[in-house]
């Protein structure tokens, strides 16, 4: 307790060769595995009481957790609170982690928390009609290529507003499927793990969600034409 050399704690030293091997590996297929393994190592550290390890997990996953919470709750402050609660719960329950993937585990905590909040909120319908859902500036650059044409970006941004509103009108389970699979880009399996639903259920939820969203965009006179144009860009 008293004598603790501040320079090298034993754990990072032992982990170093593996970490170096991961960084060296240029193999694309190995990349997700490496991420998962790093997550697992951090979980193990957190399970031994290392808050720093857990905070590394927080940094790695806070954006995902926050975005899912934000789109479910449509309120930046509520989403921040839910995100913080998710990580506090994750820290206090870290010893219950048995799986192989950290992100679905965290997102399951987050979505459960959001569902509780939504239920408590009684789903005030007025909220879903907000034209401007979040009071945070979106980060468009994170997924749009810089080579995107400014005009098509304008169309996409305009449609995005309508789409957010359409998303808000979906039933919770369909909305969550659309958020996880299409907005966040997670697979069916991970979505099934997060929601605790069977794979077939996930399939039908995402199918119904997409069909409904498409219908809403078509039926909205404010954007039907825009959607039509966006939907058929590849005509020769």
């Amino acid at each position, binding site marked *: 307790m008293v004598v603790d050399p501040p320079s090298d704690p034993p754990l990072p030293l032992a982990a170093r060769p593996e970490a170096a091997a991961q960084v060296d590996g240029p193999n694309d297929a190995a990349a997700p595995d490496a991420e998962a393994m790093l997550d697992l190592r951090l979980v193990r550290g957190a399970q031994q009481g290392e808050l720093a390890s857990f905070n590394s997990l927080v940094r790695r996953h806070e954006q995902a957790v926050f975005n899912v919470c934000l789109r479910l709750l449509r309120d930046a402050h509520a989403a921040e609170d839910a995100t913080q609660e998710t990580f506090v719960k994750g820290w206090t329950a870290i010893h219950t982690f048995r799986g192989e993937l950290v992100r679905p585990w965290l997102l399951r905590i987050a979505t459960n928390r959001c569902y509780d909040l939504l239920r408590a909120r009684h789903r005030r319908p007025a909220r879903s009609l907000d034209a401007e859902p979040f009071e945070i500036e979106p980060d468009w650059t994170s997924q749009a290529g810089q080579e995107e044409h400014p005009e098509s970006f304008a169309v996409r941004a305009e449609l995005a507003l309508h789409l957010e509103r359409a*998303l808000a009108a979906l039933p919770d389970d369909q909305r969550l499927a659309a958020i996880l699979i299409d907005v966040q880009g997670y697979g069916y399996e991970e979505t099934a793990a997060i929601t605790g639903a069977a794979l077939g259920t996930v399939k039908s939820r995402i199918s*119904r969600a997409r069909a409904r969203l*498409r*219908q809403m*965009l078509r039926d909205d006179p404010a954007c039907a034409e825009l959607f039509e144009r966006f939907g058929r860009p590849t005509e020769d």
Partner: protein
Amino acid sequence: MDERQDQESGVSPNNAPADGGAGHSERGPSRRRSAHLDQHLDTDALSAYLDDRLDEPERTLAASHLARCEACQGDLAELQATVALLSGLPQYRPRRSFELGPAYASRGQPSRFSRFLPLIPALRVAAAVVALLLVGVTAADIRFADDTRPPAQQAVSRSTAPSTSETEATEGRQTSEDLPAADDAGSSAGVAEPAGEQADRALQAVPAAPATVAASNRTADTSLAAPAEADPATDRAPSTGSNRPSAWRLAEVGLALVLLWLLVGLVGLQRLRGTSDPRAGA
């Protein structure tokens, strides 16, 4: 639900001539999903096709149908556009960090004990029961010390008290008043011994105290699961010190230790629950 029906039967027939009469005649609600060659694809099939989630025979059938059916091509294109829009929605950068503050390092690391959090109500009950027992035993002890009865009768009270229910043990006074009537029970226990020998045994019993405590601990454990089953265990604890005047003291010490143990556990767990408050570390 109706929406989906409308969508299928409303959109596709407009273009039905494109894939010939066969497709039109085969479209029945019951066979919608079985992807026959000239059957329109429903939204489930289109969605799964989009994600390459169709199993092999269906996938080929869907592809060959799509190649010839403009209606389904249109549906697929719009679904694809919807998915593209969804995946193009912006991500939002959190305005602050969600890392846990240093306060969590000391108080918030309950990894081994937080699993006992659900036991708090049971622990409360157990602590209350043990406290009542302690009060009862102490009361009975004081009563007997005042009476300075012959040891035989003290033993009687010991054999009767545990046999009744736990709550009655708290009414030690009442039990002691019943004593004279239960005299023969005491003699059947064969407890008449010279006082000097008892004192010796009492000294010997001191090293045995941990065992008594352990037995009492077991009592607390079983009372967590099923309070009704605690009786045999309570019986055991006094019987180890049977025939000795210090048995009451041992029982009191044991119960007090158990109570202390329960209270420490309770306080610890409640504090631990307090750290689950998200604002505790912010």
